[in-house]
Every structure is written in structure tokens, then in C-alpha cells.
């Protein structure tokens, strides 16, 4: 409720003509971002996580080396150590890098492929549309975990399992983007300004990418942000099943799986609490940011 109120006041204040003349769209967006508490908190956590992902490894000990056995959190090991004596704090920090990279790269790559396919399908229509979208429907029917399992079973000996897992995550996410973009392009292309772009002599390519895409961007950004959290969750799930990132590399899902294998749920709960928390916070942050962006960017919802 509070969120709604906030964004309503933003709309009212940004609607006055004097302000409109001086405010660019980007600045309006920033203002709306500050007003939307969930989005703002999400953004702060995401920025913080990205900083950890980039610089975190310079501040922690080697996450793959450890001596002894599990020990509870202490001043020396903030999150305790796991059954092999490795510092869990270091492993969680190092795992941030893997998860954030996989999440963002995965979402970005599927966004790019999905956008291209969806834009072509939506703009061209007819047979091309049918062919692309039926293929997308077929891909959509495959669960990401199942695809990863089959890919790794078939190619796991030859190629890096992490890469295969990421490919599976990317492939499965493409139809989602293709559908969104196709839908947006279908509705945008009926607009007069798209027809005007055609009348003044634009090629199809520049009509799609110069005129239609900027107006589809907002839905894409929202979906892309939410897709980051899906990808992170998926890679953690694959890691937990032993299919994604392989030990001794620190990955949150793999860490959970290690804890599970060590029967640590009662004897050393910190082994699963901290990576679990890391997954939860990361996914939550991206979801909050994505939902907030939807409220801010989409004038039809929430305002």
C-alpha cells in the first residue's frame, strides 16, 4: 500500500509542465526509484552484491583450502568452517562472484537471443513467426534442470560442467524473452509512429531496433532483472544436485549439497544456513528490484 502511495505522489509531482521541461526521463526514473522503497532496497543490495562479486575475493582467504574439521562461527571464522575446515565466510563471498556472474551473464545472453528471435517473429509475422514461436514453445516445455542433466550426461566428460549448466539455463530462458518481445513488438508495430518510420523510408532493421525496441525496453529490463534471480536459483539447484559448479569451487548450491552430504543439518547448521541465506538474499534483492522497476517503468501497473 505504502509503495503505491509513494509512486502516486511521484506521478503527480512529475506531471507538472514546468518540471517536465527541466527533468529528463532518466532523472524522473531516479526520483521514482528513491520513492519506491522495495526497489531502492533491492537496488542497494544488488549493487553491494556486485561489488562483493568483483572485489570480495581480495579480502578473503583462499576458499578452496582448509585444515581440520567443522567449527562454529568465531571471531577468526565469522561463518565458521565446513567439514574440511574451509572458511565458510570466504566460500560464501567467493560464491557471490560465481552466482552473480552466472545470473547476469545468463540473463543477458538469453535476453539478447530472445529479443532478436522475438523481434523478428513479431515484426515479420506469418510463417516466420509461426516457425520461431513453435520452436520456442518446444524449448519452453523442457525444464532447465532436465536439460542440464541431459547436457551434462551427454557432454559432461568433454566440456566444463559449469558451462553446460549455464547453457541449459540460458536456452530455457530464451523463449520467455522471445514471447515478451514478440508481444510488445506486435502491439507497438500497429502504432502510427512505426508506420511513419516506414513511410519516411526506414529499413525493417532500423524500424525494429531504432523505433520499436526503445519502447519495449522497459518490459525487457524488468523481465531481465527477474531472470537474473531465476538463473541464480537454477545454478544453485544444479550445484546442489552435483551438476553445476564442481567442488572444490565454492558455489552456494554446491555448499548446501556438501553440508547435506556431511549430515550437518543438526551438528553444524551454519554450514547450510549461510549459503542458504546468501541465495535467499540475492534472489530476493533481484526480485525486489525487478518488481520495483516494473512499477516504475510500466505506467499501466500500480499507478
Amino acid at each position, binding site marked *: 500500500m505504502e509503495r503505491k502511495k509513494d509512486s502516486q505522489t511521484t506521478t503527480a509531482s512529475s506531471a507538472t509542465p514546468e518540471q*517536465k521541461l527541466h527533468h529528463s526521463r532518466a532523472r524522473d526514473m531516479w526520483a521514482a526509484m528513491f520513492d519506491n522503497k522495495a526497489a531502492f532496497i533491492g537496488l542497494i543490495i544488488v549493487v553491494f552484491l556486485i561489488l562483493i562479486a568483483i572485489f570480495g575475493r581480495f579480502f578473503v582467504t583462499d576458499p578452496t583450502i582448509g585444515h581440520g574439521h567443522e567449527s562454529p562461527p568465531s571471531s577468526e571464522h565469522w561463518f565458521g568452517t565446513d567439514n574440511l575446515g574451509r572458511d565458510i565466510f570466504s566460500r560464501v563471498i567467493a560464491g557471490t562472484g560465481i552466482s552473480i556472474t552466472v545470473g547476469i551473464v545468463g540473463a543477458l545472453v538469453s535476453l539478447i537471443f530472445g529479443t532478436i528471435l522475438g523481434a523478428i517473429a513479431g515484426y515479420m509475422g506469418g510463417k516466420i513467426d509461426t516457425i520461431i514461436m513453435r520452436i520456442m514453445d518446444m524449448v519452453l516445455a523442457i525444464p532447465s534442470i532436465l536439460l542440464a542433466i541431459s547436457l551434462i550426461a551427454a557432454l559432461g566428460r568433454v566440456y566444463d560442467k559449469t558451462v553446460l549448466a549455464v547453457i541449459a539455463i540460458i536456452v530455457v530462458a530464451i523463449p520467455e524473452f522471445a514471447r515478451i518481445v514478440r508481444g510488445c513488438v506486435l502491439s507497438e508495430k500497429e502504432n*502510427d509512429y512505426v508506420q*511513419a*518510420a*516506414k*513511410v*519516411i523510408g526506414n529499413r525493417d532493421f532500423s524500424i525494429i531496433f531504432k*523505433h520499436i525496441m526503445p*519502447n519495449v525496453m522497459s518490459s525487457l529490463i524488468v523481465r531481465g532483472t527477474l531472470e537474473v534471480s531465476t538463473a541464480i536459483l537454477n545454478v544453485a539447484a544444479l550445484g546442489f544436485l552435483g551438476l553445476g559448479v564442481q567442488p572444490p569451487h565454492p558455489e552456494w548450491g554446491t555448499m548446501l549439497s556438501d553440508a547435506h552430504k556431511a549430515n550437518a543439518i543438526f551438528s553444524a547448521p551454519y554450514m547450510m544456513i549461510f549459503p542458504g541465506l546468501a541465495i535467499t538474499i540475492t534472489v530476493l534483492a533481484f526480485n525486489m528490484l525487478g518488481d520495483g522497476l516494473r512499477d516504475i517503468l510500466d505506467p499501466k501497473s500500480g499507478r
Partner: protein
Amino acid sequence: MKQKILLEIKNLKKYFPVETNLFGVPTSVLKAVDDVSFNIFKGETFGLVGESGCGKTTIGKMIVDIYKPTSGSIIFDGTDLTNLSKKEHRKYCKDIQLIFQDPYASLNPRMTIGDIIAEPIIINKLVPSNEVENRVAYLLNCVGLAKHHRDRYAYEFSGGQRQRVGIARALAVNPKLIVCDEPVSALDVSIQAQVINLLSDLQAEFNLTYLFIAHGLHVIKHISDRVGVMYLGKMMEIAGKQAFYERPLNPYTQALLSAIPVTDLSLKKDRIRLKGDVPSPIDPPEGCHFCTRCFKVFKGCEIEQPPLKEYEKGHFVACRLYNKS
């Protein structure tokens, strides 16, 4: 006076499939434009009127290649545009432009109006890149906008100003023919007059030819040299402005003209009131499309489609009243 034909529309048809069967073969079609022919002479304004859904906008959009005609030909300056490839057709963007009905939807919300006007100049490489800005400023001036408006977005403007931007965009390529698709019907009356006067001034200045599509007869009367009336995808009557307003032949035209509101009540003639609604263009009446509502209908109207015939010089009508010979 022999005038040069700039645009020749011959037996133009546009059918939109409404339903298709399992194999994609249309089972019912909407005949938006059904066998329409007319000429537009160089330098004139041809007004095209008709009620909503009669196909007048579809004709305009076929001329600028937004829609592909089902059959028939659009001959511009001696070249049949309907057979051209996409690439060849793009060359004619420089010659034929369109002004849209809705000035709110026709301008890209993410572009400044300067960029909107500059785009056709850049795409068609009309002037060297260092002169584009001068040309934009000149065009803004032509349509009565100020130079400092260049970097504003369309949402900062009123409807009339936006339509001026649309006109400037159409003018940017130095076209020969401009299809004005109800350019004033989204504006209020005081602004309508301004925009129409602007269009007339520009026509004189740049030697333009207009196909002026409208549903307001007062607008058409003000700007057109010749007028065509459409009903349910058919051309009913084509006449010079004077003949059209003084001696309308087709009963549909007579009914339309009688519906113009007059301010002087002593001049008010008997209003012809048509009964019923316009039939669906998916399933138009057999014979004359107007026969279901015509007040002069007689036996045979519902069987035979009357062709458009020249009744007197330059005055064409499609009605069986006039070709009983």
C-alpha cells in the same frame, strides 16, 4: 485546360482476411476497398470523404505502401508502384509522404521533434550531414514552430503543434504528393482552421499535390479542388468542388450534404435522413452497396452494381439513376 496526372489509381482492391480455415485459406474477407479508380492531377487537392470504415484511409495507406493492395494498380508519375520490390519502393518515399490522423500516436515518444524531422532527411541522404540541422530549423520555421522547440519531446506539445511536427516530417523529403489522412479530425475546430491554412500555404509554396482524406465536409470544402465520395469500399461520386456541392448526383452524396449543419436557419433545407446502419463490409449488399439505405432505390438496384461513369465533364457518378440509357 489539360492537367498532368500525377497519381492514377486503377481498379484498386484491398481485401482483409477475417477468418481463415485450417490451411490458411481465407473463408471470409472484409472488402475494405473494392475496385476503386480515380486520378489525381498535379498541383490539386483531391478530397476523399466517406464515413468511418468506408476504406478511405486504406487507400491512403496503400499509396504509401503500408498496406499491399490485393489487386489493381497505383501509378505514380508513370510508374506502377504495386509491382515494385520493397527496396525499389523505398525510393518513392522521397515523392510520396503521409500525414497521420493522430498526432499523438504518430510521433515516436522517445525522440525529440528535431530528431523526428531530421530522420527522413538523413535516411534519404537529401542534404550533406552538416546541413541537416539547418534544414530542420528551416522546416520548423515553415510549419510555424520555433527553432528552440527542436530538442523537446512530442509530449511537451499540444495536438496542433504535434500535427505541425508531423507536417514538417512529411515535408522534410520534398515530396510531390502528400497523403493527408484526416490530418485535422483529432484537433479541435479552432486549431483545425490553422492547420488547414498551413497546409494550403505549404501547397502553394512547395507546389504540392494533396490527397486529402477527411470525414468532415466543411474541411473538404475549404481545401479541395475535386472531391470523391466513398461508401463501403466503393467510389460513389467524383466531381469538381463546385459541382459536388451544388449539383450532387448520387443519393448518398445528397444525403451527406444535407447533413452539414448550417448556422443560418433560414437557409436550412430539408434534411435527408438515412435509415439504418452501414452494412458490414464483410457481407455487403448485392448490387449497389447503398441500395439498403437509399431513398431513391428502385427495382434492379439490389441486383446490378452500377459502374462509375462520367455523367458530365469531370463529374463521375456510380448510380443507376444516371445510366439508364
